[in-house]
């Protein structure tokens, strides 16, 4: 958040009340974790027979898969809890880090509180089931988390609603997020109010795109890019996980308990970088590398799969049986393809998505090639200046040459 420009800095009058409110959110989150963690652990150790959608317990099929892999239910529960704690530490840790470094900025406090409550999301239902009398506190945490998410999407990164009329949609939605669950709890017939959330799916992206194109400064655009990158990386990993689940490379329970959690960690990390403006300018490099190595991994995986399939068929034709040599040859094949394929994919991606960089590289390449033929110093100077102009686009450029220096 660009504090000077957006005015998200808290005045001394609001500083301590805001910090106090944040501390109350942190206390609520810690309370939920202390109460809910043992409940999740207990659920993980029992097998779910019916109505398993909201339960953390493994199903009968999951238990069979674990048994087939030689993992006991107790071992699975311990591993799963370790992973849950790791996730919680990263979500809450990044939230607390934002508070420590930017506690005088209300947008940063809002983001931090949202991340802290997200860390405790999985314990809400177990608490409500086990302690109905304390369920409202868990529900309060859940409602606050949703309200903070709405505000984050509507206000990030400048702290203002853009366009301004958007607040007339956003504020009612935040109110619904805050009171909706309590209302539906008392009057189940009021469940239709969740329909009012649908505009969020359109207005959220619209607001961010509008803001990015019309109202954001350079720093704000980079902040937006980080969050978009976090969402995209998470979505990409989840899609890949769904594919791995479908083709049966990884068991369902591993995907759901570990892999999806791991994918979700992209979000807090990217949001923290965005809000703290740490290495903000590296986003181009990271996106470029992600695209290149993601495409490279997919292509090499496909080549390996194809080579193994084809070679196994050949071995069956030649010797009547399958052979491990197919895997060895396929591995050597993809090892040989790695470098040229990476170079080609990088070239294609630069040409399509990073045109300026691609053009600059081409210009420098052409200049280097031309150097061999160019002997006139004046012509050379002119060409050098032209290359600098084209590639770096500076405001001014001048070239200083030393006259009559010693020959080397």
């Amino acid at each position, binding site marked *: 958040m660009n504090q000077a420009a957006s005015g998200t800095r808290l005045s001394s009058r609001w500083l301590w009340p805001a910090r106090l409110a944040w501390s109350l959110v942190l206390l609520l989150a810690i309370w939920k974790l202390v109460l809910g963690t043992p409940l999740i652990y207990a659920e993980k150790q029992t097998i779910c027979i019916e109505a398993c959608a909201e339960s953390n317990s493994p199903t009968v099929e999951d238990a069979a898969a674990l048994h087939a892999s030689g993992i006991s239910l107790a071992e699975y529960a311990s591993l799963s809890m370790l992973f849950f704690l790791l996730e919680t530490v990263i979500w809450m840790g990044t939230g607390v880090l934002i508070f420590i470094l930017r506690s005088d900025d209300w947008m940063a406090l809002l983001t931090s509180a949202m991340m802290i409550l997200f860390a405790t999301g999985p314990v809400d239902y177990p608490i409500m089931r086990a302690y109905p009398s304390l369920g409202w506190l868990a529900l309060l945490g859940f409602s606050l988390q949703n309200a903070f998410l709405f505000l984050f999407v509507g206000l990030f990164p400048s702290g203002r609603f853009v366009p301004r009329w958007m607040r007339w949609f956003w504020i009612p939605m935040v109110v619904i997020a805050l009171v909706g669950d309590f209302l539906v709890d008392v009057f189940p017939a009021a469940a239709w109010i969740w329909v009012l959330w649908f505009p969020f799916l359109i207005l959220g992206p619209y607001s961010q795109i509008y803001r990015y194109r019309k109202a954001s400064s350079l720093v704000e655009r980079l902040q937006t890019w980080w969050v978009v990158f976090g969402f995209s990386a998470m979505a990409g990993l989840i899609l890949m996980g769904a594919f791995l689940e479908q083709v049966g490379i990884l068991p369902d329970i591993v995907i759901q308990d570990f892999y999806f959690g791991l994918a979700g960690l992209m979000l807090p990390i990217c949001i923290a970088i965005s809000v703290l403006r740490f290495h903000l300018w590296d986003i181009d490099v990271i996106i470029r590398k992600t695209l290149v190595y993601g495409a490279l991994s997919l292509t090499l995986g*496909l080549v390996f799969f*194809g080579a193994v399939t084809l070679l196994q*068929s050949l071995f069956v034709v030649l010797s009547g049986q399958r052979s491990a040599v197919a895997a060895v040859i396929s591995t050597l094949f993809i090892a040989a393809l790695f470098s040229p394929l990476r170079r080609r994919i990088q070239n294609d991606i630069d040409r399509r998505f990073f045109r300026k960089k691609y053009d600059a590289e081409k210009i420098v390449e052409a200049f280097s090639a031309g150097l061999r033929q160019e002997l006139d110093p004046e012509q050379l100077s002119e060409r050098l200046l032209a290359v600098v102009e084209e590639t770096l686009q500076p405001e001014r450029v001048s070239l200083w040459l030393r006259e009559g220096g010693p020959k080397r």
Partner: protein
Amino acid sequence: MMTGTNHIVNGEISASDAAIDGLLSGVLAGLGMAVYIALAMLASGVAPLATLALFAPDPESGPLVGVLAHLAVSGIYGVLFGVGYAVLLRRPDYNPPVWLHAVIGGLYGLLLLLAGTLVLLPATGSQLQQIPLLHLAIGHLLYGGLLGWLVYRRVRRMEA
């Protein structure tokens, strides 16, 4: 002419770049072939997903594995074509017209069809034998023609 260190010196392409050209073109051409066969089978009353599942090496696997296996194998055949093209056809002083590339590719596709239907598919008990030979033949012709055209385009673009 491009002056990168990786390849193309005096109109010649390195084996690795030819392989990559063939790989990427092979995957795209394989996609065209899969679409054709799925549509042709649909006309015979077989659902596209059921057709795509026939491409899977294991009868238990679904259409996703089937289509991936088909694209992967198409890519590998594309590599062979790409390398063969660079070694046998590509010469600095010889540049046949684009239609000839498509015809050469088509012949390559028919060669693959022969190898597949006579040797590979019966030996491995592949489910692809359930697809009528006519559809397979047109699919392979389409694959080869697209492959030849795409490899030609890629090489031309790199030389530009």
